[in-house]
C-alpha cells in the first residue's frame, strides 16, 4: 500500500505531501503520524503542503485531527507552505484549523517549533 514518508529530525517529524491525496492515503497518514509521535516522543510535527492545490473540509479535518492528537501527546503541529489561494479559500469555506500553527516554509516552521518548545539541552545552555 502507498505510504507517505515521515522523516525524523531530532525532536521533530517532517511530512511532505507531494500530490493531492486520495482519502485513504490521507487517513493512513493521520494514523501513521500519530503512532510516530507516540513512538518517537516527538515534540513537533511539520506538514509541508506547498504542493497541495486543494484543501477541502476532509483534508482540513485530517490536519486538525493530527494537530489535536499530537497536542495530547505534547507535540505542536505546524503546517508549512500553504498556497495563498488555498488560505483564502479555507477562510471563505469557513474552516478554521484550530490548534494548528502556520509558517511560510520548512525552515521558518522549524524555528517556530523551536520557539514553542523548551528542549532540555537548550534550557541548560540558557542557564550557563
Amino acid at each position, binding site marked *: 500500500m502507498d505510504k507517505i514518508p515521515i522523516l525524523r529530525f531530532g525532536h521533530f517529524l517532517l511530512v511532505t505531501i507531494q500530490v*493531492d491525496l*486520495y482519502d485513504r492515503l490521507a487517513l493512513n497518514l493521520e494514523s501513521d503520524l500519530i503512532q510516530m509521535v507516540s513512538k518517537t516522543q516527538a515534540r513537533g510535527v511539520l506538514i509541508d503542503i506547498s504542493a497541495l492545490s*486543494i484543501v*477541502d473540509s476532509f483534508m482540513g479535518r485530517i490536519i486538525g485531527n493530527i494537530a489535536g492528537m499530537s497536542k495530547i501527546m505534547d507535540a505542536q503541529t505546524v503546517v508549512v507552505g500553504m*498556497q495563498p*489561494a488555498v488560505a*483564502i*479559500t479555507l477562510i471563505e*469555506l*469557513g474552516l478554521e484549523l484550530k490548534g494548528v500553527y502556520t509558517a511560510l516554509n520548512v525552515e521558518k516552521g522549524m524555528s517556530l517549533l523551536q520557539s514553542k518548545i523548551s528542549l532540555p539541552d537548550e534550557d541548560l545552555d540558557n542557564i550557563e
Partner: protein
Amino acid sequence: MIVVLNKESIPIDKEQDVVLFRNRVKEYTIKIGMGVVNQTKLITAASELVRNILKYAGKGTVLIEIISSGRQNGIRLVFSDKGPGISDVPLAMKDGFSTGKSLGLGLPGARRLVNEFDIKSTVGKGTTVTILKWKNG
C-alpha cells in the same frame, strides 16, 4: 442569456472519483483562463459537493459546462443524485448543521465560494445542486 459552449457528464460512485473529478474541473478552468484563486474556490466547492453525493447518496453524476454570458465565460457544475434527499433545505444550508456528525460546512461553504448557487431536493427522490463561477467572478 447564457449559452452553453461545451458539456461533459461525469459519473461519481467511488472515493477515487473525487480527485479525478477535481482534476477534470481544473482542466476546464484552465481552458477558459480562470485565475488561480477562482480556480481554487470553484474546485474546493466542487469537492465538497461531490463528497456529499458519495456520503449521502452513494452515487450520482456531475455535469460540467463551459458557459458564456456574452460578456464573460464561466464554469457551471450540476451535481445530481437519486439519494434520500434533504427534508429541510434551509436548515441544511446553515453553517454547522450536519446529520453526518461532521462540520456541516460543505453546503454553506460551497455557496460562499461561487457566484451562483442553487439547490433542489425532494425527499425520497434526490438532490440537485448547481453552482456557477465566472472567470473573473
